[in-house]
């Protein structure tokens, strides 16, 4: 039974994509795993889809940490770096569109599962995915560099999700 062992890799990558901080992602996965362990025992191991259930706990934990990280104190860890234009654009997307793209293209999750992981409706997932892909395509077509505002700026204005 290596259920968590198999999921630590996608969970850690998802946390990194949401938080854009490797150390914070480790903290998020650690805390989420402990929370999941407690919940799993209370549920007597009766979880319909373990992957969705566990990734949803990780994503929720990341969202809570993300709000805390908006405060102007606390140490920041190493951030992911852009290696090409695509990753540069992805890094400058907002966290939810970026997470939706990650779940869809990297984890190959169906939309219904993405909705459960990110606590959204399937229609919202479809819209976010469509707009994010369109935005990404526009940026790549123009090939003039990044024009999307940094996610921190947009989140401080309170229009995230």
């Amino acid at each position, binding site marked *: 039974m290596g259920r968590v062992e198999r999921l630590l890799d996608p969970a850690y990558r998802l946390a990194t994509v949401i938080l854009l901080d490797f150390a914070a992602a480790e903290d998020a996965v650690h805390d989420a795993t402990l929370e999941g362990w407690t919940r799993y025992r*209370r549920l007597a191991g009766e979880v319909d889809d373990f992957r969705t259930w566990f990734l949803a706990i990780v994503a929720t934990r990341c969202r809570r940490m993300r709000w805390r990280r908006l405060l102007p104190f606390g140490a920041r860890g190493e951030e992911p770096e852009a290696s090409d234009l*695509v990753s540069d654009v992805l890094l400058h997307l907002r966290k939810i569109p970026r997470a939706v793209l990650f779940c869809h293209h990297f984890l190959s999750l169906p939309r219904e599962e993405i909705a459960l992981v990110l606590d959204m409706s399937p229609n919202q997932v479809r819209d976010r995915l469509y707009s994010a892909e369109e935005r990404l395509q526009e940026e790549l077509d123009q090939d003039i560099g990044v024009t999307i505002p940094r996610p921190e700026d947009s989140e401080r204005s309170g229009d995230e999700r």
Partner: protein
Amino acid sequence: MSDSLGDEVQQAFAKMTRAPRTYLYERLRESIWGRPAPAVLVPPRSAPWVGPILNPSPGSSRKAPRAVLVAVVLVITLATVALLAGPGGLVHQVAALRTALTSRSPTAATAARPATSAAPRASAAPAASAPASEPSSSPNATPAAGNPTSQAGAPAPLPGYSCAGQRGGASGQSTMTTARGGPQNGYDRFVVQFSGEVPQFEVRPQDSAAFAQAGLLGSAGLTVTLMNTTAGGGPTDLRLGLRMIQEAKILSSSGGTVQWGIGLARASCFHAFVLPSPSRLVVDVQS
């Protein structure tokens, strides 16, 4: 989005992120093993979902936490002390032997023999409380008396487990929606899900897997009888091939009674209980 761009996005995410460090596994193991277990609604067990990294098997080469090592050393020390100093222990045997050799009399030599024969019983002194010395009268053995055949060769039941028939459930009408099974750490689980309340049920052990001419896989079995139930859907034959549960199959469904047969690899104790939201009957078979 074109497939090529999708691949580019996938590669970009692969470069942007990385696999978790070993430190994360170590940290999780420390956190889970170092904290007290939370309140549970089911018999406490080790975290079965954690897997070999966080919950390594006895053969694992990973380091055991300090508390486990201390406990092991303590048990070994107590056992050694009991062996040496307990009644009929090695110290007494050596003293008796020395007396016998010193006196060189046949009576003294034979007097040492009872002490020798008492050694095995005394060697388990610290753990050998009264119930352990009389297994046939211990509370754990009582369920086995009702079903001696199913107990043969089976391990000692865990807390909450019994080798005798178990029953429970509510008196209302219910519909069975689905059934499933899966392996867990130390037991196999069979679950029947209902649309209403869990109906009255009875789980009984069987001597073989061929009861009711069902011809189930395995060498022993269980029958799960569900009263006031209609089979609304879900599988009727699950060839699970688990360590204990080989197969689960609906034997009959008529007159408001549904009967499942579970083929087991060998006779074993089990634990049947109910979980809500959604209503489920859970049968854990000890492996």
